[in-house]
């Protein structure tokens, strides 16, 4: 299903404006502007920076995971299990601290659980060379099921001192948003400027060629899965701090939203293309769209429909743009 062009003729280089503006990120930015204008027409209360920031903290955890997921997709793999990973790590964390483990140690246990989940994904998809799409559907069910065993139908409370990461303000900005931006900046620099970052693109563009060029494709992909595992666990624990308690159905179905963030930001599903900036913009776009719909008093069900339509439109647009700007 990968496209290969047999002969590549010399075409005149694209003009600079074309390179800068004809790209998926531009589309995402445009959609943000449209969303902002539309939402402020629907409700005069919408254009309140604090309100939008508050809303963003609700999905900040998933947005952070989506940043790493973007890198995994660029490398040509996919992972549908991070939402389940978040739930299981959070449950493990809450469970061991309830059993009497000191808080910092419980956090470490949660992170290690996430790392182990990333390792299982990596083992199945990279070491055993099974398609990651089907492997992570399997692990999605598996991790969520384990969380269900640990937590059952009850919600596990976390200690008072740990609750409220979203209420910590730094210069008036909630902490999760700061973490999100720091993570985005860091991952953006890694992906855009380091050797490993460029190698990730190369693997996603053509794995066989990358292998022949001496790139450690397997090692890099395993590393990405492990990173995604740990970051998902951290996000799960952040969610536990925000919610004050943990249930097995934490961010149930969140994989859709994370994939949507990557796709809306212009990440190419077959790998090799995409940017952290795009996913970053898409995360804000989603918040603006969903808050806009909330202040306009639209049913949550309509939001589900809009998410689905957005995902399809985003991928049609991305494919279209990439087809026009074939390398």
């Amino acid at each position, binding site marked *: *299903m*990968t496209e290969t062009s047999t002969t590549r003729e010399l075409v005149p280089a694209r003009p600079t404006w074309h390179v800068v503006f004809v790209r998926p990120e531009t589309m995402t930015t445009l959609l943000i502007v449209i969303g902002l204008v539309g939402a402020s027409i629907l409700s005069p209360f919408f254009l309140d920076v604090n309100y939008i920031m508050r809303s963003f903290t609700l999905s900040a955890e998933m947005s952070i995971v989506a940043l790493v997921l973007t890198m995994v*997709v660029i490398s*040509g*793999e*996919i992972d549908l299990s991070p939402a389940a990973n978040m739930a299981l790590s959070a449950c493990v964390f809450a469970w061991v601290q309830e059993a009497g483990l000191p808080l910092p140690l419980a956090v470490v246990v949660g992170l290690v659980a996430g790392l182990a989940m990333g390792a299982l994904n990596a083992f*199945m*998809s990279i070491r*055993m*060379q*099974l*398609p*990651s*799409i*089907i*492997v992570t*559907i*399997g*692990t*999605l*069910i*598996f*991790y*969520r*099921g*384990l969380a*269900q*065993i640990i937590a*059952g*139908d009850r919600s596990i409370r976390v200690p008072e001192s740990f609750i409220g990461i979203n209420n910590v303000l730094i210069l008036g900005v909630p902490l999760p948003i700061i973490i999100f931006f720091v993570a985005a900046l860091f991952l953006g620099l890694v992906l855009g400027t380091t050797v490993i970052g460029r190698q990730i693109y190369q693997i*996603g563009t053509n*794995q*066989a060629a990358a292998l022949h060029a001496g790139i450690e494709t397997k090692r890099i992909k395993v590393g990405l899965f492990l990173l995604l595992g740990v970051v998902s666990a951290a996000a799960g624990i952040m969610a536990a701090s925000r919610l004050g308690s943990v249930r097995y159905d934490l961010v149930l179905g969140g994989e*859709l939203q994370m*994939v*949507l963030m990557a*796709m809306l930001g212009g990440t190419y*599903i*077959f*790998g090799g293309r995409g940017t952290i900036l795009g996913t970053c913009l898409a995360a804000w776009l989603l918040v603006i769209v969903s808050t806009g719909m909330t202040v306009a008093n639209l*049913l*949550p*069900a*309509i*939001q*589900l*429909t*809009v*998410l*689905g*339509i*957005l*995902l*399809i439109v985003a*991928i*049609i647009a991305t*494919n279209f743009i990439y087809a026009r700007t074939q390398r």
Partner: protein
Amino acid sequence: MNVLGSIFFRRESGILVMIILFCLAVGLYKPQFLTLSSLRIILLLTPLIMIGAMAQMLVLVARHVDLSIGSMLGFSAMVVGLMYREFPEIWWMVGFPVAILTGATLGLFNGLLVTIFKLPSIIVTLGTLSLYRGLTFIISDARQINRSVIPTELKVMSRTSPVFDIPWIILIAFGIAVMAYFVARHTQFGRQIYALGSNPKAAPLRGIDVTKVTLVVFALAGALSGLAGILYASRWGFVNPSNTGAGFEFQVIAAVVIGGVSINGGVGTVMGTVLGVLLLGCVSAALPLLGIPGSTQNAIFGAVILVALLIDRTVRHRGVASVSGGAA
């Protein structure tokens, strides 16, 4: 590894051995598991998954995947439920064509997105999974269709039986499996699905109308999900906008993958899929008998999928050629 490969000479016999070993192991511990009545329980657990698995098998063989099956099931069931509520005097059998056509329309929409825009089916159907579920909420105004609305004739279908005390709903499911077997093995269309899935580039060179085959496969998957939808209403007697069909796609994918259908297309048999469904049915039926709480079921299903994938890999000796990466 090689010894294991030669024992599982055929993929299907491997699953059959797994089913027999599992049942014997459970039977040693709880002898009542090896009785006809528990066979009846197992069979009653499976009809919906059986129909969904046939749909998913055809899609996977064509080298696509359909994640929206559960949402199509829910939407079709809701359309039928609303019809029964708004037109109580309508003949109950009308529900079947309505459900099947509704499902087929949704499936066709998936197919159109995949073929016209050349989009990967995994992402399209992830989007329509959410889209159709949202539409189900909208058309139902987020309210459940209650037991009293579903016609009695429909509800008794899952209990009464024409022959051998086997309820209608099970007969229908196995009827669909037999039809799927016939289509896959003995029709030109069936062979074209396999040809398309084995090598999508070579298929058009052999005169296969790729667009048409893809569209029909997705429409068929939708139609079967629609049928599963009305049978859901029959089996459970209600339709709920958020529960009906939620997570169904994962159970179906589990059954199909366990049945040895390859996610890379072109490989998979109806027999294997049926056995995969039955294995899942045995596991679900055995859990309560063994006193294992129902909350463990998902974890066990997940583990079974992973183990099945590993066994499948060991059996098939994948070549170096298939490093094509994830988003197939």
